[in-house]
């Protein structure tokens, strides 16, 4: 597999960070809306899997942070 150069690594880091922020807002909004709208979100979306996905992104972001 082709190794990423420093600039590409930096872009990836920023993307992961911003995606993590976006996902955090989305997950929080979905959980709150699911309570307020009495189950509307969980009817269409598996919130447990979404939470797991958020956790994976959070770990990747944390790993990038640790490498700094």
């Amino acid at each position: 597999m082709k190794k990423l150069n420093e600039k590409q690594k930096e872009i990836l880091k920023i993307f992961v960070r911003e995606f993590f922020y976006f996902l955090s807002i989305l997950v929080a909004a979905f959980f709150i809306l699911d309570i307020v709208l009495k189950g509307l979100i969980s009817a269409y979306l598996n919130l447990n899997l979404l939470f797991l996905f958020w956790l994976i992104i959070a770990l990747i972001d944390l790993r990038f942070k640790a490498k700094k």
Partner: protein
Amino acid sequence: MKITKFKNWPLNLKLRLVFGVFLLVILVLIFCLKVVPSGKASYKKTWTNNFFSARGTMLDFRPGIRLDSKAKSYLKIIAEPVYFNFYTPRSFSKAKITIKYFDNLAEATPIIELGLLKGGLNGNYELKPLQNKIIDDLKFSWDRIVDDGETLILQREKIYNNGLEFSADFSEGRLENCVGGPLSCAVFYNYNNDYKYQAPANNLTRSVKINQALRGEHQFFNYFNQGKWFLNFDFRDLNLNSGQEIVKVNIYLDNNLIASQNLTGLDLATRNDSFDNENRQGTSIGELRFSGLAEKGALYKVEIKAGNDIIIESIESSSDQLVFANKFWPVYSEGLKISTEAKFLSVKTFETESLGQLFLNEEKFELDKTYSSLLLEAKDEEKYLNELKLEKSGVLIELNGFIALPDTKFFKALPEKMDRFFSASGSASYLLSNYKSPKKEKNYKVASLEFDLNSAYLNNNYYSFVISVPGLELTEGGENYLGIKEIKIEVEGRSLGEKIISFIKK
């Protein structure tokens, strides 16, 4: 203020803008899902073994003991009834439900029905047929008078040529080749009942007070001659359950509600969770009194809606022409005798002290299990009225027919309703029904039903449904079952535009 061009923005800001727009789109989508601007929506549930699938809008299929959890690609119903909830983001006015299913049911369970809960937690399920195999067979062996996809009228022999001829006779309370009129040889099944009971000439009635205590919800028919009529009820709250008990009495004339009163029980739960059939427990919560003027002799239907914590202490009526329908649950009495025209009776008890013997036309039956139904069959075909003697009290009787007490006069208020015990070789010569046979689609059957959601009970955005296969009970091996592959619910209500217009007009 200096505005920099988008291409000169730092990468993180560009990404934030893109994700922000994406978030906004998602929120708009959620708003649309919640409000359903068009007023029409369609929800579907298929049984697939998909780990990633969401909860769905149709959920909570229960109780688990009546379902075979090993079947993953379809819902396997091995005993009835099975309940489920349907989630809707808002209220709608009507629903079309399409069910794709297959079955491996025995001959003793020819009817499959779907019901929608109406009128609150103490309400009833409005049951509609998904399939009635008896009618599916009769459609080919009997003559069809009317079969327009909605109404189905069959006759054993070809007597009437069309629906108009039949309706003209039926509305006058007579039918060809039928001495006793519709009451003796017509059978209803899921039929929008326009039948009007006609009392015999010189019908004499006298007032009666029924002191037989009854537990929970009951329904009875009372015929009043021309003149003043009254109905009085006394109620008692057993206080076995905590929470307020609400008793509601509805009186109908020709299917129109003419009087309704409520009574609220005191919240005096003693937490004594056993019911004593000998000693009268609980507290009196009061009485309800109704009276009116009958312009001509007419049949009144009375519904007493109450939970099992309520005892109907007494019923006083100006007419003794009074019969209970479908369910009868006497308490605080021993050796009670009742009369019924029903050939099959299902009896059940929830108290060990109510276990014991029952006699149906002198034939002895032993009720030896609690929470389990015992089916009683009157063997004497010639006998019109069967007598049931209850040695013990607290026995719940369920039947497809009417019950009279020793103090009241028996009469058949409505033509017989078709149930799973119907025999084509019996006395019935006409069948009236609002039934449509399911369509065949490869290995499945597809049935569609429409429900009015306006009067349905909507609890926290959930409608409650029941799937019923009368007679389907748990058996070892579970070889008799109903398999549901797909449920599709199309709902319809007011659109957002219509809602805004009606809001402005207010």
